[in-house]
């Protein structure tokens, strides 16, 4: 409680209260995360339980009744008779799960390698940062596709659908760690010169302890900013991969998979199968991105023009 009260009194919360963009995007993002978590409770149907589907409900338009079955669907149904509203909720779950996990993976990897580079210097530093440079010269999506392709090749076919989501997380994470590593290394190099680190060294603390207990807390703010922006990017990368058909399988569709399915029906007039998942993805990515931008400006006042 005491902590919460001090948070409410902080500069950070004060700045948040005075930024309408941040409030709105925070609310949207929080709402989406909440609905995704609660999807099984909110969704009128479970679109991934095939025995509950009725094909005759296929291609029902939004806000209208199906001609054959008389069933009603808020946002219409897709080609298999799945409720679009429910598929979006479940798709959002997969998208957010992949996004969060991929960023977490990238963060752990990037921060460790960044700290390692900063603390050891010399050859280790050079090798890690050259790898980062090389990787940075390729688009992230290309690297994610490469990793995904290799992983798909080495997993046995019967496991492919089960591991698809994890492979997706790893491939996006591997494509994103460079941002973290570079920023952490830079910030840690600066912190290393500071007196409190020298003091800690003098009393004989180990290098690992110094890195984790002293330096890391002081650079966490910038890590958090990158993490937020990376989350938006990871969600988009996941959607892109799934749209290209190499990501989440149709039995576990993410928003990108739903957009890919809907794209086939755009010309034939069934616009809702594409539009609603696409709007959801847009709102999610936009709100997280705006939040990340605001966070960067607030936590790093030097950035402000």
């Amino acid at each position, binding site marked *: 409680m005491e902590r919460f009260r001090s948070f409410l009194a902080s500069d950070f919360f004060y700045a948040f209260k005075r930024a309408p963009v941040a409030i709105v995007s925070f609310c949207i993002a929080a709402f989406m995360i909440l609905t995704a978590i609660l999807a099984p409770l909110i969704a009128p149907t479970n679109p991934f*339980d*095939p*025995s*509950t*589907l*009725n*094909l*005759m409900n*296929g*291609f029902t338009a939004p806000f209208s009744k199906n001609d*054959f079955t008389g069933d009603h669907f808020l946002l219409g149904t897709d*080609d*298999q*008779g799945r409720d679009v509203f429910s598929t979006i909720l479940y798709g959002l779950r997969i998208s957010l799960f992949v996004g969060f996990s991929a960023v977490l993976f990238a963060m752990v990897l990037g921060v460790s390698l960044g700290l390692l580079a900063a603390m050891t210097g010399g050859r280790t530093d050079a090798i890690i940062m050259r790898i980062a440079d090389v990787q940075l010269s390729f688009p992230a999506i290309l690297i994610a596709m490469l990793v995904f392709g290799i992983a798909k090749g080495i997993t046995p*076919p*019967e496991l492919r*659908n089960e591991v698809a989501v994890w492979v997706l997380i790893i491939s996006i994470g591997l494509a994103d760690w460079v941002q973290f590593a570079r920023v952490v290394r830079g910030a840690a190099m600066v912190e290393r010169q500071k007196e409190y680190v020298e003091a800690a060294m003098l009393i004989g603390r180990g290098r690992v302890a110094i890195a984790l207990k002293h330096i890391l807390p002081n650079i966490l703010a910038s890590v958090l900013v990158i993490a937020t922006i990376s989350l938006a990017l990871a969600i988009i990368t996941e959607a892109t991969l799934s749209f290209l058909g190499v990501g989440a399988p*149709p*039995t576990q569709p993410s928003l990108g998979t739903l957009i890919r399915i809907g794209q*086939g*029906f755009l*010309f*034939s*007039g*069934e616009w809702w199968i594409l539009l609603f998942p696409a709007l959801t993805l847009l709102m999610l990515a936009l709100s997280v991105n705006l939040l990340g931008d605001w966070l960067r400006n607030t936590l790093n006042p030097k950035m402000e023009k």
Partner: protein
Amino acid sequence: MKTRAIISTLAVALAMSTSAVAETLNWARAGDSLTMDPHAQNEGPTHALASQVYEPLIQRDMAGKQVPALATEWSTDPNDPNVWKFKLREGVVFHDGAEFDSEDVVFSFQRAMSPDSDMKELLSSVKEVRADGKFGFEIVTDGPNPIMPANLNDIYIMDKGWTEKNNAVKVQDFEGGEDTFSAKNTNGTGPYVITSRVPDSKTVLEAFGNYWGKGQFPLEVTKINYTPIKNAATRVAALLSGEVDFIQDVPVQDLGRVGEDEKLKVITAPQNRVIFFGLNQGDADLKNDNVEGKNPFADVRVRRAMNMAINRDAIKKIVMRGQSIPAGVAMPPFVNGWTKELDQIPPGGAEAGKKLMAEAGYGDGFTVTLQCPNDRYINDEAICQAAVAMLGQIGITVNLDAKPKAQHFPEIGNLTTDFYMLGWGVPTYDSEYIFNFLMHTKGEKRGSWNGTRYSNADLDAKIVSLASETDLAKRDATIAEIWKQVQEDVLYLPIHHQVLNWGMANKVDTTVSPDDRARFKYFKLK
């Protein structure tokens, strides 16, 4: 009076001018021909291109009727029922100017029967081929074969001299990845000559000046640009923009859009192809299920329940948008042996199916994997997805494994799948072709596409007897008996007969042939 005269003169002038200038047709479909060697691959798009360049002895017209091509007359020898006699067409020349005679026919048949040939199954009953003078040809079979001519539509005739000169006597080993002269070059007697070809990109065909069929066929198309366009949306866009005049595969969801366009039309006709699911009912246990120690598909009640659970009307209405004919038998309606009674949709529905499942001891259901192609048949993956939901209603949890045909078909051939989708077209228009490939026990000579592990010695004997049964009434009775057994044992779960949708510019005038083959020499242009 005067105006009418002017109009008619104009019309005549117009007609003359159109027939005089080169009429180009831009043709697109999803896939390209795999090879130009006419005996290397028994595959639809491959034969479709080859048939513009090469010709068989007997061909089918656009309606599927057998008409003379390089043979003008054929009959069995009155003295020996094991011999089919053919009278060959005189005055035919190959594209390079060489004369066509019986030597070329004997050579081509021997080539088509060689081990690397993919056409040898169609000639499996042939014992010997021989020339009978310069324009006579005889096929000796190892027993009377009354339907021999039906097997010859895709056996193309090559020039012996040209083939020998270019070191192309051996058929290209396609599966082995071999590349040969005959895989890239052609020399047929057909109405069109390939003037340039870049595989998977563009092929240009031009009318053959010395074609024997001049005056017999319309031959109004004088130049064909053939472009494979894999992506359905791109293909439709190309037709809508006028970039191509004719596509063979309009996606069902775009039929309305193409049909509404004033400059375009869609012609629809039932295809000689049935789509069905195969079930491993022969093995003691399945690899891809969760039932230990026994095979649920071995119980005919389970197969019947599954057959009932598949709602073919819903698949037709929603997945195929009306563009299919629900099927009750794994045989297209064009085939000898087909009856309305056989093609009856199994009655029952999911509720009755559930009861049967409980009766068979699978009231709680089981889990199994369904293998499905995603680039071969119309909406193949969507059909499988729909089937997953329908089988879910009788308690069977189906995991869907959809992948490209290049990986799917070997699973059937190598017997690594327990539940799969397959489509079957019947070029001979006779049930025997289906029995030989799909119903006979899988073995050396027959049953190569039978992935059900079904084996019935009695049925096999009946199937083998068809090849040499000369009494056609008796033969038809045996065919009916076989089908009765097949239906009783629920060998396959039929889904539907495909419907072809050819989209074309208004200027193109043609009918749709049931084997999905565009025979351009019959095309007219307005």
